[in-house]
């Protein structure tokens, strides 16, 4: 019987670095695992919007001479590759952290994610696990830890 795939949300800066970086790094390996289908990636409009806006920032765009149509094609293919969740979950009062993290956590909870992959050491990683009644416990891990958990190449 096939093993059920791990479900995970990958934070915006890991996604963007995975798209742009060249050499082996945890962010690149997470992105490549996403493309290979080593885990079930979840995205929301909020996350895709952040990825698009970040790639369109002039200094980011200049890194790889990105064109608008190319950015749109990448974001479109990313949306089709991932499972889409609305990310509208609002009852996050039990997550005592910065407002900026809430839409990312919302997508995790709504999508029944096992993991949130991030390198946000200030706000998200210290939480380690978010447990909300009626939802799957959400583990917050670094890209390196996540790769170990899914046994990615």
């Amino acid at each position: 019987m096939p093993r059920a795939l791990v479900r995970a949300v990958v934070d915006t800066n890991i996604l963007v670095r995975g798209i742009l970086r060249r050499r082996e790094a945890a962010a690149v390996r997470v992105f490549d695992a996403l493309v290979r289908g080593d885990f079930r990636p979840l995205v929301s409009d909020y996350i895709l919007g952040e990825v698009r806006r970040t790639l369109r920032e002039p200094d980011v765009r200049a890194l790889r001479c990105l064109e608008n149509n190319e950015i749109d094609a990448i974001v479109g293919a990313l949306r089709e590759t991932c499972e889409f969740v609305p990310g509208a979950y609002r009852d996050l009062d039990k997550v005592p952290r910065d407002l900026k993290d809430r839409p990312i956590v919302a997508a995790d909870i709504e999508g029944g994610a096992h993991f949130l992959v991030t390198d946000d050491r200030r706000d998200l990683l210290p939480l380690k696990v978010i447990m909300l009644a009626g939802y799957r416990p959400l583990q917050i891990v670094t890209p390196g830890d996540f790769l170990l958990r899914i046994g990615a190449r």
Partner: protein
Amino acid sequence: MTRGLAAIKERIEALPIEDKAQLLEAVMTPQMRLRLLVNQVRRRNDEASDRHVDRVVNRAVKRVRRAAGTR
């Protein structure tokens, strides 16, 4: 290769380049498309070191979040 497959291969090879591109687009999965796009992007502009990419991206994400009023 069976005769049927060989005939299909021959017909594809005979297509004009635009039709070949259209055919490729139609049979590519989103994963294949994403891999192709990202591989093209990663290969471009050797001057940007990976460390520099990290710094620029992290700063940009913070800016985007500030502008969206979520930070």
